């Protein structure tokens, strides 16, 4: 930055990419200076990933030019991009878990003493690199045994080892815990101090404001504008992203709790490798109440949610729904008792991607009236129902015959939510219901959750987003290594206690902190 008008490291001019009738990128301009963190902000489907895939040679633009270090260039493939010193780190890491760090780093590269694999020289070079950029790592550690945050570091080193001076990071914080995010940001700052440039793709306003030098906002394939951080605010960016005033604060009407709907007693389970995944879990949820389950990802939330839907076998304790013991019953019994589960994995489990919208909407009720009678489908009824639901839930599709594979993440989530809510739940379990969704869809989902609460549905909300948990929950339980560390009221003033519990302190021993 610095004010002087040097030649930018990267300049994209009028980049256009068309898929069928959809202009994924429409005349987009972007420039990245040396030593800059440039955020690319936008809702899902705004064209961020398409633009970066063009830069990385995965797509070829239908129009526009790419200038690297002042020179016009063409990028034909990822291999080509690497040769031109561009590195990309995908949201889902491309690492071999059973290989060591150094083996992963040299994967696919020629080494000095071909055809012998000279890992020692590579390890030495890797150590030099990690010292230079302050990325501490053991080159011989097995990647699969490393925490996610460190694996990400391996991905960055992989790119640096290949000589990248422009790093593209696609939603890098989605997989990190809050603590890891902070140390990750420190790494980014060290990298730009060494002269690297970074493009940071995100839809999280706070992070973008926190880390970037400049921010470019995309909306519906077009560039809305570029702002230096000093001129950006949360609200302004949100407006640019969605094109309208967004209400970031939700109104939660006072609690009107009814009877106990879900009663979990001493629940324990083991995962496949024999490790105890749930340890003596105990809680209840009442009708009209939202119980939030907070915690860093991977502390047993998944197993808990699955156990409550009949998808995870438990070894001890009990699950009662409206007084009926459903412990270790099959999923259909849970469904019959009004347990609806919006799960985190939309793509392979929550939806049948090759089915169209109509078909997905009746996934749980394909046997029942009015969709089927004596085993024969009522196709007209299914279509009518699809039309009604698509309209009511504002699912943006041409019609119900569109395969859900073609829908954006937000619209896919709306399909799931519509299906579960229309099933008339007594207990609604939601797992990361807004993960990967844009602001508009997030707001929509949260409103719908509160609507169900107002209708007297018992809601169990599992999320790693603390603001989401606090905005929606009447009570918050925190999970750590398969245990519930404590349950506190869902108020912002509980934040400190929740954070401590997330790190493994139990509420009972926490005498020092008072709300």
């Amino acid at each position: 930055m610095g004010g002087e008008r040097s030649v930018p490291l990267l300049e994209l001019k009028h980049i256009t990419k068309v898929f069928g009738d959809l202009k994924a990128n429409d005349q987009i301009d972007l420039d990245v200076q040396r030593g800059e963190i440039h955020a690319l902000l936008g809702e899902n489907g705004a064209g961020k990933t398409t633009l970066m895939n063009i830069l990385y040679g995965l797509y070829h633009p239908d129009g526009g030019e790419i200038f690297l270090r002042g020179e016009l260039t063409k990028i034909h493939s990822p291999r080509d991009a690497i040769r031109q010193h561009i590195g990309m780190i995908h949201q889902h890491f491309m690492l071999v878990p059973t290989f060591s760090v150094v083996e992963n780093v040299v994967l696919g590269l020629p080494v000095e003493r071909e055809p012998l694999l000279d890992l020692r020289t590579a390890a030495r070079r890797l150590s030099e690199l990690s010292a230079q950029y302050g990325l501490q790592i053991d080159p011989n550690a097995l990647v699969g045994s490393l925490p996610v945050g460190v694996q990400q570091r391996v991905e960055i080193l992989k790119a640096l080892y290949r000589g990248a001076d422009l790093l593209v990071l696609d939603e890098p914080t989605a997989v990190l815990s809050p603590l890891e995010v902070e140390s990750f940001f420190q790494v980014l700052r060290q990298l730009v101090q060494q002269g690297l440039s970074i493009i940071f793709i995100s839809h999280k306003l706070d992070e973008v404001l926190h880390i970037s030098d400049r921010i470019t906002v995309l909306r519906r394939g077009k560039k809305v504008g570029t702002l230096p951080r000093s001129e950006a605010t949360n609200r302004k960016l949100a407006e640019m992203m969605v094109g309208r005033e967004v209400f970031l604060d939700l109104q939660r009407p006072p609690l009107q709790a009814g009877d106990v709907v879900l009663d979990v007693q001493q629940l324990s389970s083991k995962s496949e490798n024999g490790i105890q995944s749930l340890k003596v879990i105990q809680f209840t949820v009442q009708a009209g109440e939202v119980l939030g389950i907070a915690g860093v990802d991977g502390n047993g939330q998944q197993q808990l949610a699955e156990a409550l839907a009949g998808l995870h076998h438990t070894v001890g304790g009990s699950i009662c729904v409206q007084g009926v013991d459903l412990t270790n019953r099959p999923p259909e019994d849970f469904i019959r008792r009004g347990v609806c589960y919006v799960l985190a994995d939309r793509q392979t489990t929550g939806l049948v991607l090759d089915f169209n919208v109509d078909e997905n909407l009746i996934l749980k009720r394909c046997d029942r009236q009015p969709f089927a009678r004596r085993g024969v489908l009522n196709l007209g009824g299914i279509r009518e129902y699809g039309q009604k639901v698509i309209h009511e839930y504002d699912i943006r599709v041409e019609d119900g015959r569109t395969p859900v594979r073609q829908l954006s993440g937000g619209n896919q989530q709306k399909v799931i939510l519509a299906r579960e809510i229309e099933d008339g739940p007594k207990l609604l379990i939601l797992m990361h219901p807004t993960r990967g969704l844009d602001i508009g869809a997030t707001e929509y989902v949260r409103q719908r959750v509160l609507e169900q609460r107002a209708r007297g549905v018992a809601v169990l909300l599992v999320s790693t987003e603390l603001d989401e948990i606090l905005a929606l929950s009447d009570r918050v339980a925190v999970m750590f290594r398969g245990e519930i560390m404590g349950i506190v009221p869902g108020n912002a003033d509980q934040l400190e206690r929740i954070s401590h519990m997330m790190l493994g302190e139990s509420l009972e021993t926490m005498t020092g902190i008072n709300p």
Partner: protein
Amino acid sequence: MMQENPKKSWPVKILQWLAGGVDALLAPLAAVLVGLGIGAALMQLIGVNPMKAYEALWMGVAGGKYQVGIVLVKAIPLILTGLGLSLAFRCGVFNIGGEGQIYIGALAGTWVGIQEWGLPQTAHITLALLAGFLAGGLWAAFAGYLRARFQINEIISTILLNYIAIYLVSYFTHGPMRDNPNAAASLPHTPEVALSSRLPLVWQGTRLHAGIFVALLAAAVIYFIIFHTSFGYKARAVGFSAPAARYAGMRVVWVVVLAMFISGGLAGIAGTAEILGVQRRLRDLFSPGTGYTAIAIALVGGNHPIGVILAGILFGALEAGANNMEALAGVPSTIVSVIQAVVIFLVAVSVVWRNRSLRRWLASRLRPAEEAAAHE
């Protein structure tokens, strides 16, 4: 994707549909031509005149009414088995066991067929076909159960069951069901089926038998099952994503077992109809690999009943023509088999290659580790 023109007029729709149909047929037909080209080179190599051979092939397919009848006769078991396989494929089960299911079905159907119970013809035929259906169905359902309940790869289990079925028929035709076991010139086959169980001929001057109606009826039934019943819906859901089906409360094991039962049942009918309508008696090794060709037919037909009928006729024509090539042009039968195999292979590849979802599906089917992971 976002906004297609919302309303198209009927003529445009029909034209598009026809264009789509022609487009879908183009690749397999091109593959047939390429395959025949390779065959011509092969024949040239061993000193057979390919022009003469292909003239014989063409005459065998379209030389006259009788030949057309033969094509359809050959197509009957291919269509029936292909229909069955297409249902299993849609349910995500790669049933390679059509051949064994044909043998087991034929065994049961023949046993009913050779009984002289004095039943009226319709009753006897129905009973025999039903026996074939049950036997083939149970044979396949067993593999389906192993797959759904214990994650035992169906590709392997159905292939192994093929061997068992073929050897069982061998045993019965050599032993308990052998015709005239004490005669000097006894062959390994059963006695002829009763007159009352024979499928009547339905087209004068040809050998086309009533099995063609059974095949067409089966196509209609399978179409209805796949697209108009909640069971068919569940089978497709399980095929696309078993975890999603389980999560939605479907009884995946039951769906897979039933789909395999129907699938094998149709192969069983195919075997029975072949005996009752053409061969009259069950012989050791009586099927020329129909169950394997039917895999290609289901894939080429896009697992759609109409596609399966068309593909069945195409492959039936190929078989009839090939036989004629051997009989009239003196091409050695092994070379005929090689040419046939090359053509079938190319047709299957051309269709799979064009169809991305089919490719994706096949890839997932053929990677057992990933499959196991998908089922947890």
